[in-house]
């Protein structure tokens, strides 16, 4: 790569090629809305955006993965992927657990250094396992998470945290108590850099006043899975059993639910709904005869910044159109957010009203057509030359999937807190004192500021919402969501 010299004389052509209005504004003391992600090295990047050539490794973390189904294997493979990044090269899957031998063997092929367990308690008894990822069916989370926290492990618990609100609260209480450990709820959007790029943009008033939010989760697929024996089939098809399943709202939509309530302000800023009204039908029986395969929910909000705003959510297993997205409507603009998944990267666009205040950089920003509408791309470097040549709203495979960001955060934070605990105990002893707690609380704050992630609080909030939304949909009723539901 050609080295650029810093010079007070700026070549105009060079300047235009490498910079943007946003960069220029930043130079002038303004704020560039940018996202801390890898720069595109195919186009000679502006100096400020290029990476260090060497990124040292973070603290080593040894993982145990409990639950080796489809998602458990995804976790194992993602943890393997982390090792390609020099920062996370010390990550290792050292133990895997599943009660079904064939799945255990299959997952173990992806983790050659892992010891295999058929009982999670034996896995937890291994001192070399520092952190566990719990990827079992939702209704089995509670005992595993409680035992893991008790055993002193850092815990990543997939979302929803639990099948019932009581279980979720028990998990949250245990996580709150475990001040020497990291508990991360599997709300992966919370660790996604694109979300952290969008959050200040949306919260910063670019919508005007909030009007409405609409979100959807559309797939055409069958939740029923086949197995060799009826007993195994029953075990495998837990999502089809209405007394166990949290339905589409819990098992599929919790990430959208969490993202929307987070962007609307969360419980501290009036973004927690105070009621949910649900509808449901079973059109193709794609989630079995007892669990609806098509649901709609309407969330309403208390007096405050979101009074009068409704959040409309629809989910179906019977139609794929437009997959999943969130659409935030405000008096000045609407913002479309397409979450990332294994097939595409996270993307967002803004559609401005004619009478919206002018935002300077938009003139230079890349724009994409959506039928008759034009969306201003809300990605890092949206106003840069290079972004204009990238594929627009066509799907392109992401470099990094959301789960990878979440596991990166978990790894980094578990390493940081684990290190802080050891250092403190070495210096001052391991007794539970207010100083110990304050010290670790500081370490946690510092770690989360570098690697944001959902904790027990966010996990509980989203789990309660998802469970209640499912209940409302199944009962086709309106359910009031009083604050007690969310309190420990």
């Amino acid at each position, binding site marked *: 790569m050609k080295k650029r010299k810093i010079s007070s004389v700026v070549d105009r052509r060079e300047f235009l090629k490498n910079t943007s209005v946003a960069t220029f504004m930043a130079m002038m003391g303004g704020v560039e809305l940018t996202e801390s992600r890898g720069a595109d090295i195919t186009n000679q990047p*502006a100096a400020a*955006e290029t990476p260090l050539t060497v990124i040292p490794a973070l603290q080593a973390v040894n993982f145990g993965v409990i639950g080796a189904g489809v998602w458990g294997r995804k976790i194992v493979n993602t943890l393997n992927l982390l090792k390609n990044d020099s920062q996370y090269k010390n990550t290792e899957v050292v133990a895997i657990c599943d009660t079904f031998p064939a799945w255990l063997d299959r997952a173990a092929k992806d983790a050659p250094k892992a010891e295999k367990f058929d009982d999670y308690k034996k896995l937890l008894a291994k001192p070399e396992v520092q952190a566990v990822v719990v990827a079992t069916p939702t209704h089995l989370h509670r005992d595993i998470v409680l035992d893991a926290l008790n055993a002193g492990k850092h815990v990543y618990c997939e979302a929803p945290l639990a099948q019932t609100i009581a279980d979720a609260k028990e998990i949250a209480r245990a996580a709150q108590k475990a001040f020497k450990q990291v508990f991360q709820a599997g709300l992966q959007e919370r660790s996604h850099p694109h979300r952290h790029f969008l959050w200040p943009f949306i919260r910063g008033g670019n919508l005007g006043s909030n009007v409405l939010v609409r979100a959807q989760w559309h797939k055409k697929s069958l939740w029923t899975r086949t197995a060799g024996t009826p007993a195994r089939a029953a075990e495998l098809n837990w999502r089809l059993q209405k007394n166990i399943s949290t339905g589409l709202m819990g098992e599929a939509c919790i990430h959208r639910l969490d993202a929307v309530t987070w962007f609307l302000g969360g419980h501290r800023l009036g973004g927690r709904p105070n009621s949910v009204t649900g509808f449901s039908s079973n059109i193709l029986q794609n989630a079995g005869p007892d669990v609806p395969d098509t649901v709609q929910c309407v969330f309403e909000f208390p007096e405050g910044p979101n009074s009068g705003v409704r959040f409309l959510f629809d989910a179906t297993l019977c139609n794929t159109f437009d997959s999943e997205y969130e659409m935030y409507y405000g008096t000045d603009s609407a913002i479309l957010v397409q979450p990332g998944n294994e097939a595409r990267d996270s993307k967002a666009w803004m559609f401005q009203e004619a009478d919206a205040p002018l935002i300077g950089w938009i003139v230079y920003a890349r724009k994409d057509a959506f039928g008759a509408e034009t969306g201003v791309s809300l990605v890092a470097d949206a106003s840069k030359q290079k972004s204009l040549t990238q594929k627009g709203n066509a799907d392109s495979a992401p470099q990094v999937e959301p789960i990878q960001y979440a596991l990166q955060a978990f790894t980094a934070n578990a390493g940081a807190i684990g290190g802080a605990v050891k*250092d403190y105990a070495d210096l001052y002893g391991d007794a539970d004192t207010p100083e110990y707690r304050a010290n670790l609380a500081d370490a946690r704050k510092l770690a989360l500021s570098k690697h944001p992630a959902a904790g027990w609080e966010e996990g509980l909030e989203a789990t309660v919402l998802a469970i209640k939304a499912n209940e409302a949909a199944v009962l086709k009723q309106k359910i009031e969501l009083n604050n007690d539901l969310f309190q420990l």
Partner: protein
Amino acid sequence: MKKPVDSLISSLLIVSLFLAGACRLRAAELPPASSQPASTASTPANNTSPAMPATVAHYQGRPTTNVAVTILGTSTFHDWDMKGTSIGGFVEFPAGVNFDTNQAALPGLSNGILPATNWATIPVRGIHSQVSVGADIMDGLMQDAMKQADHPAIQYKVTELKLVQPHAAGQPFTFDAKGDLAIAGVTNSVSFPVTITPLDKTRIQISGTAKLKMTDYKVQPPAPSIAGLGVMKCGDEVTIIFDWILLLRQQ
């Protein structure tokens, strides 16, 4: 990972150290660095020092959430700083020594030297870069440079604590401290001034500033290559500022 210029510039790295109390080693020298166990508190440091005769006033390092160690450095781009909240270890003085600044003279001196034994230890990974973006990268660079995995702590033992005379009543007691400082597996003799201030009846604060060179400790000043900007070379010399709070252990 992209990083704004500001962060880079104000960033980076390094080293070091810290501090302490006073003089006369009771037990020999710092162990050879290579033989130090991989623990932040090797040998005597843990919660108690070994023997504790009643003739000794034992002050134990206390945890704090305030900044206890600041490291200031330079680079070809920008000055940088790192901060930590932990200094562990202890200091022992003869029983009866107190640091009431109103005293005209300090009790317990012998030939102007205050007998003292100490062990101070600072966990390397407890020292953090203060940049707003990319701090974890800077912390990682520092830990790599200081070979944190093999030498998790900076350690210090004082060998002589000499009161700077005359002492002006009302001012903290100032000493010239000589001691052994171990960083990244290399032990050197160092000297710098320290002050001891009583905070209340049972707590004292030992403060000081020391300048040292990374290369004296075989720590290579980091020089990360930043595409587009070139190599950001850190200056060899760093300044360590410490404020160590200790609590008198009651018999």
